[in-house]
């Protein structure tokens, strides 16, 4: 498997992919945002899922910055903290944006449920200081952002059940609109929330990132991995089929004996 993935990764041919409806919806929302809308990015993942998370996040961040949204970042997973900051500054630098005026990173808060609920009351109270140690209420971008009333969309970038808590506490209680960037593994868990409208849209997995990149018009990490992804899938499919052939042969012989 090592070999298959390595070879197909080096080869890497770009694919044209049809965007799935959810990705299209997410893209349209950010594309049509009025200037200076506020988007809250929550980096709710561990360092381990970075390979999948990174292309999704960068695609969404770039797009948000291009739509001239104000972006507030934070993290409800200790390990998402430094990663979130790095990705935000990386994307912002591409657009020449200024920290504190166009975007801000508030850092990490443990006990996510109380943090999510706390933001509904007062975001500066939950985060008295930002990641760099500035007093939150003195940061220009934070003027006029007190709680969910001032936030247009929460985008939770997650590899676990944080989006559920955003929905159950932020969404249910404060009517906050929520969108999610998910690892592929998490997608089906959130289907009911998507169907019920509790979750606005989902960009899921490397495929979702590739689709988003295509819509956005700049190919990146999502597209680069697609051929390797395809060959890995076919490898697994082959394993399943071989496993079953062996199983049924064994059973047939047992039946005869």
């Amino acid at each position, binding site marked *: 498997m090592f070999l298959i993935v390595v070879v197909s990764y080096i080869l890497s041919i770009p694919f044209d992919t049809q965007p799935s409806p959810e990705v299209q919806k997410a893209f349209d929302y950010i594309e049509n945002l009025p200037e200076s809308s506020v988007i809250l990015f929550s980096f709710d993942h*561990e360092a*381990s899922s970075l390979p999948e998370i990174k292309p999704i996040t960068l695609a969404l961040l770039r797009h948000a910055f291009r739509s001239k949204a104000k972006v507030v970042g934070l993290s409800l997973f200790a390990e998402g903290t430094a990663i979130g900051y790095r990705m935000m500054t990386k994307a912002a630098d591409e657009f020449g944006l200024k920290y504190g005026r166009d975007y801000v990173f508030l850092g990490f808060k443990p006990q996510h449920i109380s943090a999510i609920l706390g933001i509904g009351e007062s975001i500066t109270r939950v985060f008295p200081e930002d990641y760099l140690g500035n007093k939150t209420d003195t940061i220009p971008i934070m003027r006029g952002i007190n709680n969910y009333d001032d936030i247009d969309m929460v985008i939770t970038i997650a*590899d*676990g*059940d944080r989006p559920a808590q955003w929905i159950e506490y932020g969404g249910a209680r404060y009517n906050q609109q929520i969108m999610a960037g998910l690892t592929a*593994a*998490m997608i*089906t*868990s959130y289907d009911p929330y998507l169907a019920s409208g509790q979750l606005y849209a989902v960009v899921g997995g490397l495929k979702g990132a590739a689709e988003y990149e295509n819509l956005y018009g700049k190919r990146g990490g999502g597209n680069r991995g697609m051929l390797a992804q395809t060959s890995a899938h076919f490898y697994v499919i082959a394993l399943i089929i071989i496993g079953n052939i062996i199983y049924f042969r064994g059973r047939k012989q047992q039946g005869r004996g």
Partner: protein
Amino acid sequence: MWFDGSTLPTLIFSIISFIIVLYTIWSVRSGRKFKIREIPGLNAVEEAVGRATEMGAAILYTPGWGGDIQRPTTIASMNILSKVAEKTAEYDCRLLYPTHDPVIMAVAQEVAREGYARAGYPERFKADDIFYISSSQFGYAAAVDGIISRSKPASIFLLGTFEAESLILAETGNSIGAIQIAGTDSTIQLSFFIVACDYTLIGEELFAASGYLSGNESILSSVKAQDILKILIALFIIISIIWATIDPSSTWWQF
């Protein structure tokens, strides 16, 4: 406003639920017996302990990574642990219990100690076999994985809250040929447990199983209460769908 009107449906539903829960608790206390349907996998508990004893190998029990002590799954897992500890005490089989949470560790030690005492062998209990390893998901996964491949337990119980570490644990267990009994409410992980384990308790089955095994009245009554609520929900859905089909402009069923 002392009352937020938009929360009215939740309040009504809460009150209905409370009444039903309290009713079932009351009726169990006043001697009514609730039966729970048979759950496959429960009979395997004894088999799993017995097999470990025969092989002279240990049993590994873990509540997974991600749950804390107030998670219903963790509580359910504790109830089953209590029963398993009783059995391992009886058969004098070693019980390893690695966890990611210090509070869970402390509670599990107590629960297991009681189980051993109940079986009549308090001296067989080893507190050090129930231990904290790491709060980090993959620190925990790597460590438990190491324990499985080094100590080669004959049976593995994976009952509780699991996230991505589930597959590492279940597959490693599978590869050393252990009997595996898994149960969780984490739906993603269930698909792996079903593939890699011998028995899997799906979602609520874990709660019901803990009531069934422990005979704990309060859990049994909750299971009953949930069943009543499920019937109400099913009726609500059927009625409102018929209603909505006949009168598509109706919205009374929307919350």
